[in-house]
């Protein structure tokens, strides 16, 4: 299939996407980055971690997304006393038949909102992360596949770290993106205030179906990625691991660089970004645009970075400025 054909398919697919996106934008004021991030995660076939302070419409955005897609949605509030079985389900004894029957947990939904994922202990986190990776859950002796599509959209609060269980790097690596949710601008906040004041919060209608998501994913998969772009992606990821060489200014700020999984996700997300831009091929801009969200939770900063009060985004900015684009 040549690029012209892909472009034609992409144009019709974009109409579908625009419909879903506009649907959510009708409810959520601003937060373009968050909405794009959620869609990017879904279209790239990965799970998204949202990080932001309370009150930024994270939960509302995810709920609206689920409603817009016409998919089953469950919200799980992670608490310290949560058990893995509360998530995945358990075997229940049925007195009438005298046998154990499986009772599926809330994880058996198309879209899961794992709210404040860092408040649950490690065993619950790992139960969810196992389901995310394998897309199946074992209850008793039987293994049950999770519905398709299956997306986990987890949130965590960057403040109030007391009594939390920070996700280890290995588990953070499972999330395709880490989207930072920031405060809205003044005009956006004014609009939020007006809508909330009148009680006119808007309603989300079903715009796309799970089948459409799969179609969009197929179209995105067909987007062309030049060999030089692939090399650029790998160069970026491997440059984050260049600590031993120590000749780049950013390298001393990185304790551990990104894994090869980051390169895979960078590749997929760059395709989605090209789709958002209405292009049937990926250009270096697409890679650069998605790099912070894909890499920020995969790079472990060094003590020097902390002492210089640098964030992962600052280091990634330096990294992107050091690697030549094709």
């Amino acid at each position: 299939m040549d690029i012209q054909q892909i472009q034609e398919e992409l144009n019709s697919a974009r109409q579908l996407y625009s419909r879903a996106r506009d649907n959510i934008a009708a409810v959520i004021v601003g937060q373009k980055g968050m909405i794009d991030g959620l869609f990017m995660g879904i279209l790239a076939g990965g799970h998204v971690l949202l990080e932001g302070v309370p009150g930024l419409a994270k939960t509302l955005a995810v709920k609206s997304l689920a409603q817009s897609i016409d998919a089953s949605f469950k919200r799980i509030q992670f608490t310290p006393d949560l058990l893995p079985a509360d998530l995945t389900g358990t075997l229940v004894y049925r007195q009438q038949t005298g046998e154990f029957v499986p009772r599926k947990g809330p994880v058996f939904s198309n879209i899961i909102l794992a709210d404040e994922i860092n408040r649950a202990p490690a065993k619950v986190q790992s139960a969810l992360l196992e389901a995310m990776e394998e897309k199946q859950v074992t209850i008793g002796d039987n293994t049950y596949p999770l519905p398709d599509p299956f997306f986990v959209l987890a949130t965590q609060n960057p403040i109030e770290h007391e009594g939390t269980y920070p996700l280890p790097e290995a588990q953070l690596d499972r999330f395709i993106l880490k989207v930072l949710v920031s405060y809205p601008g003044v005009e956006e906040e004014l609009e939020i205030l007006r809508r909330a004041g009148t009680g006119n919060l808007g309603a989300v209608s079903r715009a796309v179906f799970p089948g459409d998501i799969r179609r969009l994913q197929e179209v995105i998969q067909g987007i062309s990625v030049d060999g030089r772009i692939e090399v650029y992606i790998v160069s970026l990821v491997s440059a984050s691991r260049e600590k031993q060489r120590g000749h780049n200014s950013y390298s001393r700020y990185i304790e551990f660089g990104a894994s090869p999984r980051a390169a895979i996700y960078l590749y997929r997300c760059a395709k989605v970004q090209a789709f958002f831009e209405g292009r049937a091929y990926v250009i270096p801009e697409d890679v650069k645009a998605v790099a912070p969200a894909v890499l920020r939770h995969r790079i472990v900063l060094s003590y020097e970075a902390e002492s210089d009060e640098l964030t992962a985004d600052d280091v990634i900015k330096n990294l992107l400025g050091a690697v030549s684009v094709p």
Partner: protein
Amino acid sequence: MRGNIFGRILCRFLCCTFFFLFPAFLGADGSYTVESIQFIPPVYYVGDRVELRAVLRSSSGVRILPPKEFPRIEWGEFHDAYIVPRDGLTALHISFTAYQTGSKTIPNLVCGDVVLQGLSASVRSLTEGAVREPAPAHGSLLLPSTRLIIALAAGFLIVLPLAALACFIWLRPGLRKIIGYYREKQPYRKLKKDLALLRVRAGETDSRQFYISLLEAMKLYMNRHIAANCLAFTTRELEAVFGKTFECGQEADALLGIFRYGDEVKFGGRESSQGKRLQDISLGAAILWRLENSRRAAKKESVHA
């Protein structure tokens, strides 16, 4: 009287007896005569190895052999001895070294049937006849003008680096200016060279490779004169940089147009005609030439100011 006669007769008898019988005694002891005695070297000093050559004439039946063992001498030592036959004569060569000065008696040497006796060696002394103090030690001998040459070479070695340093300090501002001038113009020279090469090959290379080379050449130039890390900039990032660099917005847009079109060709598989390629080379070259000129003019003004 009778007694005197008797005495005379007895005396004559004894004399005749001695005269006729003595050679018989010599013969019994080994009949030989010493033809010559020679020391090699003729004049020798303490510590010299000397060879005594005694040429003997002997009667038949007399065996002349090198001494089997040498007697001990206090004033020196014997080394070895050997026989050299010579026209019916026998040359006996005996080596020795003397450690004392003066005339030294060589003890009797038993050489087969012959006993060499009555020989002496005269060992000379270097300080003989004068009491002299040891001469002072001489310095090493040098060829004429050696000292001058060494002095000149040392002076040259010291002066040369100092002269070089002085020259460097004196010439440094000029050198810096020349190097700076060369470096300043080097990116533009490289750009011109690359563009000329691309112009020649515009019809030969495929679209993708052509635009990879063209955009890379322009970025390399811009990396030196527009922004430090232009090579890591995407087209969108260049747009922001061009906005600050070009006074004329049209030029910035035209250059961005080349980059955007180049991205389409490089990554989107778009084909470009030879005419379009040549047009892009000319446009890019013209814009960057004007940029280079205005940059040089601005620099000159700042220097004058």
